């Protein structure tokens, strides 16, 4: 499939053979750049949600507070799992650069499994809160908490579906400039979510249990 792209210059310019595979087509480099811009928009989105949380986190309105709710072993486990998944995702990209399809797919599957366990723990946390007198509707603090952490969780869930689709494409087509670009972009997305989680860990959970 990629040969067709290689025959002629794309957009009237030549192909860069020295660049890493995902950057080798001009189209690939362009899309990776575009995705960085998308991440900038997503960053602003999370910044607004964080700002809202910071404004509202004290407004428990007589209901459960952060210190009463947050469970240290639970969110520590979530954090460790997600950080590890970012590492395994990175190992996948490393395998890709070594041209190992099997290694890449294996590391991506491990990343997906870690992502799923993170989501599992988060859903369990949410259900526990909601069934123990702390649903979204209880107070402004809980509205902000569920929305901020839930938006991150939705992003992770979408990332899992996305990676499954790419694993399927890798299995069918192997490592090409196009699939390599897709792996690279979903990797950027995944690492970005990791960084957002680091902020959730500090701003929401650590601050919460210390308040």
């Amino acid at each position, binding site marked *: 499939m990629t040969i067709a792209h290689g025959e002629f210059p794309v957009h009237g310019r030549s192909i860069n053979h020295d660049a890493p595979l995902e950057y080798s087509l001009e189209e690939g480099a362009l899309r990776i750049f575009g995705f960085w811009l998308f991440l900038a928009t997503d960053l*602003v989105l999370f910044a607004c949600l964080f700002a809202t949380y910071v404004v509202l986190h004290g407004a428990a309105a007589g209901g459960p507070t952060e210190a009463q709710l947050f469970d240290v072993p639970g969110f520590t486990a979530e954090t460790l799992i997600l950080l590890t998944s970012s590492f395994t995702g990175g190992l996948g990209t490393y395998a890709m650069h070594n041209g190992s399809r099997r290694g890449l797919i294996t590391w991506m599957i491990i990343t997906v499994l870690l992502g799923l366990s993170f989501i599992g723990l988060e859903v369990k946390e949410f259900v526990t809160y909601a069934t123990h007198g702390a649903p*979204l509707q209880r107070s402004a603090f809980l509205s902000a908490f569920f929305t901020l952490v839930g938006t991150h969780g939705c992003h992770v869930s979408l990332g899992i579906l996305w990676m499954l689709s790419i694993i399927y494409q890798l299995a069918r*087509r192997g490592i090409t400039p196009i699939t390599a670009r897709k792996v690279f972009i979903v990797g950027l997305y995944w690492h970005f979510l990791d960084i957002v989680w680091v902020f959730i860990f500090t701003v929401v959970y650590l601050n919460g249990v210390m308040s």
Partner: protein
Amino acid sequence: MSTFLPHFPATFIVTGDPLIYGAEVSIVLATVGILFVLTYFKKWRWLWREWLTTVDHKKISVMYLIAALLMFFRGGVDAMLMRTQLIRPNMSFLQAEHYNQIFTTHGTIMILFMAMPFIFAMFNIAVPLQIGARDVAFPYLNAVSFWLFFFAALLFNLSFVVGGSPDAGWVSYPPLAGLEFDRGPGENFYLLSLQITGIGSIATGINFMATILKMRAPGMTLMRMPLFSWSVLASSILIIFAFPALTVALALLLIDRLAGAHFFTMFQGGNPMMYINLFWIWGHPEVYIVILPAFGIFSEVVSTFSGKRIFGYSSMVASLMTISVISYVLWVHHFFTMGAGPGVNSFFAVATMCVGIPTGVKVFNWLFTMYRGRIRLTVPMLWAIAFIPIFAIGGATGVMLAAAPADYQYHNSFFLIAHFHQVLIGGTVFGMLAGMYYWWPKMFGYMLNERLGRWAFWLFNSGFYVTFFPQYLLGLMGMTRRMYTYPANMGWNTLNFISTMGAYVMGIGFIVLVMDVVYSIRFGERDVTGDPWNGRTLEWSLPSPAPHYNFARIPTVTSRDAWWTSKQERSRSDAPRKLEPLQPIHMPKSSGRPFIMSAIFFIGGFGLVFNWYALGFLALLGVLVSMLLRSLEYDTDYYVPVEEIEQTEAALGRA
């Protein structure tokens, strides 16, 4: 089932007002008429192949322009209705409730469904051609952006006849817009349609930033780029960093309304002021998003029709970039009266006054470009010249409003209304109309009629002064915005009467503008040269309209005003130009998926408006499946063979 099946009482289809009955009948008639014409002339296939599935930036530009003009009409009718209601004291032409809906839809439509598509029409037609690119960076995404906007506009306008229009103002502040004070589906229509069009706008911002930074022709360094493209870059940066704040503001209010959360309610610790902050963190940059491209157009127009290169190019670039940075730290000036305290208010007041400096630099540069130029008073140039006094006055009243202590007097009065119409109409609308007249031959291959264009200009421009100058005085006399009528003994009668007369003149000006378009479709002068204005930038080096691949050979740029320079060089030497051999051109394939995916967004949005979660969930699934199918699609582009390029170029009279 009670949540899934709607209650079908009389509230589903809006009833009870003769104006709305009239609108309902005309919507049905127009729809039947369009369907009949398409079927009778067997145009369905043509519509699908040429327009609904296109990813060509030039066609997308045409569709944006048509949509913007239609929405301009709709928003304009709202304005006429409001001014008619205010023509005399104690009028009962509109009821209070209906008036609330109309000022809400007027504002929302004019900003998000008129100004935004209008600037996007200009982005799309000019940017790739000016920088020597074959399309935008992401043509498929460009089509997605357009169709999201289109279906969002449809959803918003549907509220008029189905369920009821939003009525909490275009800013939709809670708690007024919250569930406890506004139960109807109108607010949901507002929130969901803005959310959908907002996604499209963010994608457009990303698209054009990538296009401008990565797809310029060889030799076109940033400092050789035409100023319109610079203004689009500045505007795209603002879109990227401002629109997500709107997404969050709308989403949180929607969660309040649909899921019973307490972000902005008056209970359980909610904080309505947080919404106002988030809204204006987007809302203030938004006015610069729509004004900066207009500045870019004025730069192109003034330079072309003065026959001179622009004065102070570098300072123009610097001021565009300065404005785009400063505009992020102005948002609190929309609510000085909220009581943020003297420290905060002072900071935002001073910042607001500072933004006048780079704007002033630009105005002087336009004036110096005209100074000793060979000025041609074409219609685009008329709009550009008329912009300068209007914007100067609008800027001066803006500085008055920026003085925080004095703002306690002006706030939410007609003084404010006059101010922002002055900058938004005088800036954005004049700019877009200048751009429309300027690039119309490039879009359609024929010129708009200058005579009718002059009539439209003079009516609209003089109507503008008559409409808005009395409103400054009314504001100083204490008339507040959003009041649906007023008693007779306030001393406001004459000024309101004059203002309404001015609005009618502007309305007539718009009708003449439409007549110009219709007349020129039939009788407009063909543009056979591709360069009807003796232009300076690369888009004028191409035939009008440009072939679908734009440039048969990507030009190499050696200076600013690249086309002007190459015309000068050609007139100096007779040596035949050496042409590089043609190469196959890589182009994206058309796709119906942007249209279908956006239609699914529309269906889901409609479902959520009425709390039909099942429909919303199905639509979410549909969107995910569309995205998956796109990801699995590898056959997305093709090559235009050399023979086809040769034939096309020969047919256009170009060797």
